[in-house]
């Protein structure tokens, strides 16, 4: 174990042999990792939005302004009992006005509108397609049914819940692995070439180590550790840059009707990215020094 740690420490020390080459490698690895991270970030956010909706379809139902509230309340109860409806959040015009005031922040008071409230009664419902039904057919039928209710003005589906988004996710997932594979290849080549440079610089030492009986792993281990460290550092740098970018655009989609706050990668994915790039760096080094 002591020998392993000594060799690992030497691998890290050797990274200072060619500071410029190492810096360029670090930048290259960080850029490639940033691309991979950005790709993952988009997917993670779409996934998160889907999860937030509980994997269900969301729809907003708007009644005509001035609708009979007694009738509307009865309809809310009817809707709750419909097949596939998993939840319903209702808003009377007054509640909608208060919610709007709150959403717009302190200092905004719509109390003066209370007597002539222009907002209609609304309800937001979560729908889950019954197992035996096709989603499109079910949604179409449900929208028609809701629109047929007396007093209902319009029904709007949450844009994130459309099939288009689902298709996009499916295509992205299909593209994800080839893209990640390609980026991994680039990282491996970049790190491998830098390690080769380091090996060339140390060729006398390597020759002497061979001559005094060093086993191949003794010579390779510091180089593998160096490649692994380059991968880790590059990916970590990429995540720092990604976090800065994410902080900058976090609220960019946070407006009606999207209300999407762009979040950062989940911790497991972030750590996975760092580890994966580190391993690719180590593999790149291994390929570079195997002979």
């Amino acid at each position: 174990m002591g020998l392993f740690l000594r060799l690992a420490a030497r691998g890290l020390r050797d990274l200072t042999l060619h500071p410029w080459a190492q810096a360029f490698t670090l930048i290259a690895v960080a850029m490639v990792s940033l691309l991979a991270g950005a790709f993952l970030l988009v997917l993670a956010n779409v996934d998160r939005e889907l999860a937030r909706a509980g994997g269900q379809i969301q729809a907003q139902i708007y009644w005509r302004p001035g609708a009979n509230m007694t009738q509307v309340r009865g309809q809310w109860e009817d809707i709750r009992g419909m097949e596939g409806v998993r939840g319903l959040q209702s808003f009377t015009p007054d509640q909608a006005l208060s919610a709007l005031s709150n959403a717009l922040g302190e200092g905004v008071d719509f109390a003066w509108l209370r007597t002539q409230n222009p907002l209609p009664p609304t309800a937001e419902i979560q729908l889950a397609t019954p197992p035996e039904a096709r989603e499109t057919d079910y949604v179409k039928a449900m929208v028609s049914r809701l629109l047929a209710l007396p007093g209902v003005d319009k029904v709007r589906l949450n844009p994130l819940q459309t099939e288009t988004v689902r298709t996009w996710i499916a295509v992205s997932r299909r593209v994800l692995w080839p893209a990640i594979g390609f980026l991994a290849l680039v990282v491996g080549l970049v790190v491998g070439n830098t390690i080769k440079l380091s090996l060339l610089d140390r060729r006398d030492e390597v020759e002497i180590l061979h001559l005094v009986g060093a086993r191949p792993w003794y010579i390779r281990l510091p180089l593998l550790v160096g490649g692994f460290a380059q991968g880790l550092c590059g990916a970590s740098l990429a995540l720092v840059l990604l976090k800065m970018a994410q902080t900058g655009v976090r609220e960019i989609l946070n407006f009606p009707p999207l209300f999407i706050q762009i979040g950062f990668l989940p911790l497991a994915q972030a750590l996975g990215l760092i580890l994966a790039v580190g391993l690719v760096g180590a593999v790149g080094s291994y390929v570079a020094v195997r002979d």
Partner: protein
Amino acid sequence: MVHVERLSHSFGQHFALRDVSFSLEKGGFLFLNGPSGAGKTTLLRLLHGALPVMQGRASVAGFELSTLPRRRVPDLRREVGVVFQDFKILPERTVLQNVALTLEVRGVDPGAAERRVRALLASVGLEDKALTPCGLLSGGEQQRVAIARSMVANPKLILADEPTGNLDLDLALRLMDLFKQLHTYGTTIIMATHNREVMAQVPEAQVLALRDGRIWEGQIAGQIAGQTEGQTGTAQAETSRADGKPDDDGQAWEDGA
């Protein structure tokens, strides 16, 4: 310890070694003698696994070199200490670090390695240079570092290629005392040298004279010590075949001895 049978080696069209055969028992001392290009270094490199055995057989410390897989070469090298003609030391590292390298690759604890190296450096006269980078040493001092490195792991066999070539006679003789001491402890030594006075330090040692890659003569070092260069040449010519080739069985050494 070392058994070589009809060993040949060529670099392209040029044969560096032809049909060389000899044996050396455990604890033996063998001088390889001969002019530049005689094949001494090639023979040492073959015995160390630095060159592949292409023709013939060679067995070193129980390792059959003609069939030794590449992955087992480090095992062979752990049994064999080598002093190279060009030293092969790392100039930016200190004397201590260079000598300790042999122990380091064997996983010896750094503290224990340092104690052992410092003790050895005292015996090669480098105790006050332990922390000096090797690049700042003279050729003779670098030679001693290389010798210390070959000895530090107590190998079964030491292969030394002109180990006293860069040293003045006094120092060369002092270092020969070290080799003799190791020999006394049972280490087998094969040393390539031109220096008759060095050879005279181990009169009981065997001498294998090489010329153009062939065995030219085998003698006892003590016999050569009393001869001048010309006399030796005459003696070798007299005991060799008229055509200058070794005996058919390639056992010129055994014949001469």
